[in-house]
């Protein structure tokens, strides 16, 4: 039985191809000059160059965190190239001008940048290595006053907005990897939904690491003004390479009064081979701030890729009556290590948060949930509910749960539940007796286990996520 399970969980990585395209890559190494070069290449204003330099100087004094339950080779930050972009990337007026090889790459990844996307109603910003290559539907969105563009473009076109919000949720000195990102980030997505506007389509960014020896350091900033709503999707893939590649992104979300931001990720970076060779080191800082009253920020993530995952999408519940949510499925197999979870910081009154984390460990994978729920003294009548479930497949993996619960007032309540179990032989036998083969039985059981999270994903992402887990989608009856 276990063989079938392993086959199932360890399907071959489908996105492991490389694209032959000429890139403009600066030599490996990191110093103040490199930071300046990046800033200059992007034609940035002086304040941003200074901001980067401050981040870099701080980063040099910081130490890489050692507390995560992760094992990885020491990262040599001087051997990484901090900027790589498809050559001759100028601004495009239409997609026809984009290098066809690039478009083909995205087509292979299942994301068509063509206007066909209009049919499925998803606007896409694609980040190739470090640079945003195309953003679809810009015009449609502009009519509504929505800004959806690459981060570099936002710096040029909307500097006041960028200056106002950049680093307001994740300050440049927040942590080691956020500081590194702040110094060298190359591109990413910027999204601004004005007051009262409900974004009519899902916004999506597709991240792709292609070049070798490069790191990817993108920066995403999403601002939803009073009463605005946006649902944002993020997908990631990378080629199969023997060496490890570093991905250190920062995502900042801001929700003003009555605004809602829903952020979904299907993370499928290359995880390395069976013996743990290669794969992406994914050190990501994602944080949202419910700045306004009655605002809501919701994170949904499906983590199947990366050799190393270090990621805690969090919500600062500052506005009264604000809501934070975190739904996560994390799968580790072979030699993957994931240390992931969330932080819910309750500051405002009547704030509510929900955490649902489902960890699946297989092979020699090591899966850790690490979460913090902090209910401040003034966050009266606040609520948190946390559920952390782990499933183990095989006897060489592990599942760990490290929740931190800090409560400082008596009118609030926090409930945390966690369980660890395996796929039961009796469950499989029962399914088989009803005519379902082992593989499908396991799929069904895993799917049932992770269902609470999948149901929070937008439809097209849910399909992708379930496929990723080797799970056939439950029929419309389900």
């Amino acid at each position, binding site marked *: 039985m276990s063989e079938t399970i392993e086959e199932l969980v360890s399907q071959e990585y489908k996105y492991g191809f490389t694209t032959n395209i000429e890139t403009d890559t600066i030599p490996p190494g990191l110093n103040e000059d490199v930071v300046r070069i990046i800033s200059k290449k992007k034609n940035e204003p002086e304040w941003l160059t200074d901001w980067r330099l401050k981040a870099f100087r701080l980063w040099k004094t910081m130490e890489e965190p050692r*507390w995560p339950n992760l094992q990885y080779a020491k990262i040599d930050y001087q051997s990484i190239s901090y900027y790589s972009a498809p050559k001759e990337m100028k601004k495009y007026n239409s997609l026809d001008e984009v290098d066809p090889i690039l478009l083909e790459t995205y087509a292979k990844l299942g994301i068509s940048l063509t206007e066909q996307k209009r049919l499925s109603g998803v606007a896409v910003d694609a980040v190739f290595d470090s640079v945003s290559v195309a953003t679809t539907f810009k015009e449609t969105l502009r009519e509504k006053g929505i800004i959806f563009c690459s981060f570099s473009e936002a710096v040029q076109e909307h500097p006041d907005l960028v200056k106002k919000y950049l680093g307001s949720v994740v300050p440049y000195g927040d942590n080691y990897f956020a500081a590194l990102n702040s110094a060298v980030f190359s591109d990413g997505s910027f999204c601004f939904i004005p007051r009262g506007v409900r974004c009519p389509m899902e916004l999506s960014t597709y991240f792709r690491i292609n070049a070798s020896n490069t790191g990817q350091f993108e920066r995403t900033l999403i601002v939803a003004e009073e009463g605005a709503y946006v649902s944002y999707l993020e997908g990631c893939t990378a080629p199969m390479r023997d060496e490890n590649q570093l991905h250190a992104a920062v995502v900042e979300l801001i929700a003003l009064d009555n605004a809602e931001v829903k952020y979904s990720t299907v993370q499928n970076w290359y995880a390395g081979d069976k013996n743990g060779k290669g794969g992406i080191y994914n050190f990501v800082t994602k944080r949202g701030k419910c700045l306004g009253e009655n605002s809501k920020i919701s994170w949904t993530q499906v983590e199947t890729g990366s050799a190393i995952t270090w990621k805690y999408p969090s919500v600062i519940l500052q506005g009264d009556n604000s809501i934070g949510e975190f739904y996560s499925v994390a799968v580790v197999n072979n030699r993957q290590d994931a240390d992931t979870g969330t932080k819910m910081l309750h500051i405002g009154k009547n704030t509510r948060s929900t955490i649902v984390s489902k960890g699946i460990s297989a092979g020699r994978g090591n899966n850790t949930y690490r979460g913090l729920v902090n*209910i401040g*003294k003034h966050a*009266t009548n606040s609520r948190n509910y946390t559920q952390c479930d*782990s499933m*183990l*497949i*095989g*006897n*060489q*993996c*592990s*599942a*760990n*749960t*490290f*929740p*931190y*619960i*800090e*409560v*400082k*007032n*008596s*009118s*609030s*309540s*926090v*409930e*945390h*539940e*966690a*369980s*660890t*179990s*395996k796929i039961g032989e009796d469950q499989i036998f029962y399914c088989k007796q009803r005519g379902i083969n082992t593989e499908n039985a396991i799929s069904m059981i895993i799917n049932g286990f992770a269902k609470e999270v999948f149901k929070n994903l937008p439809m097209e992402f849910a399909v992708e996520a379930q496929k990723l887990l080797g799970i056939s989608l439950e029929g419309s009856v389900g």
Partner: protein
Amino acid sequence: MSNEIHHYTAEFQEFQQNGATKSPSWVNDIRSSALAVFTDRGFPTTKLEDWKYTNVSPITKLPYHYASVVSAVPSELVSSLFVDGIDQHLIVFVNGHFSEEHSKLNSLPAGVTVKNLISAYATHQEVIKEHLSKYATYNENPFTALNTAFINDGAFVHVPAGVSVEKPIHLLFISTGINGTYVAAHIRNLIVAEEGAKVSIAHGFSSAQANTNLTNVVTEVVAKKESVVEIVKVQRESDTAYHVENLHVHQYHQSNVHLFSLAVGSAIARNDISIIIDGESTECNLNGLYITSGAQLIDHHTFMHHIHPNCPSHELFKGILMDKSRAVFNGKVYVEPEAQKTDSKQTNRNLLLSDDAVVDTKPELEIFADDVKCTHGAAVGGMNETHSLYLKTRGISEGSARGMLTVGFAAEATQKIVHPVLRQHVDKIVVDHLRKKFGTANLPDIVHA
């Protein structure tokens, strides 16, 4: 070397010359190496994960002296601390020194030994040597290292194979202040239940008066094959005193251990309770109740280590917090790859009765075996409004409802105590304590189903 460490090395030299002479030389070797570890590490700070929420600098900054002589305490005080009258086997220590005057050790079943450690070397040196400092290792915990460096006296309990002790054995540790001195007692206890033995122990800590004593205890418990051991700790020291204990239990094949920790005393109390389940089909029940008020901080760190298959462990800790007090609970369940079919449940529930009280709870699971059933839950909240409403609709006042529900909350924990005499003992202490803190006699006695 920091001042703190320097203070203790000087203390140690004095101790070597005066207090340590009554022990065999091999004990001295253990002391020296423990001191070396302590001087190397120093006291823990909140930068260490294990001490993140508990700042011990109020303890470490004071120049504590080990108590070199036994002090007198009144008999009335001792008898007020008895378990269920005087029908018990009682051994009393004052500031860590054996008090023959107050101990009552007659009528023990044949072969059972309850002595102070110093006099037990003469009769049980081999048993002591086999177990002392073998379980509560001093490499991890600086307070344990300090205790080990100052190993002198404490309780020694030995129950031979197949012997059952029906009446509880009461180990009573009383701290008493000495004017002008910060008194420390480094108490070292060893409890050994041989194969098939059965014993229940009350493990009591009280203060003779309001004092600032430091009671730093290490208790090692060995539960051999098929033994049944219950230990009920009652810590009700003065709320200006400091209390640290590392209780370490090593369980073998098919033994059954019940532990209960009641903590209502001390300004800062830190309890490390570790259980190594070293045998198949072995059961451990670890439960506790803490009630904090004023500016108290009570910290429980528990560690349940599953090594072998088919072992159930159950853990329930409940906390009641008042005023500006704080409570910390850190429960770790660790399941080794070989420990298949582990059935482990851990629950921590906290009742906050004040907006100024703070709870930090961290229920952790580390699982390396796939065929296990492990769950944990933690909850923090105020009084349940629905329950409270139900009582009120029956005509009960707000205040009484609060009191009754608090007693009920506590009773859910104390009902886990197996020995009926010890359960009554704890129930009474809990309700008396709550009556004092609520400022009313109008609280119900605990009745169990």
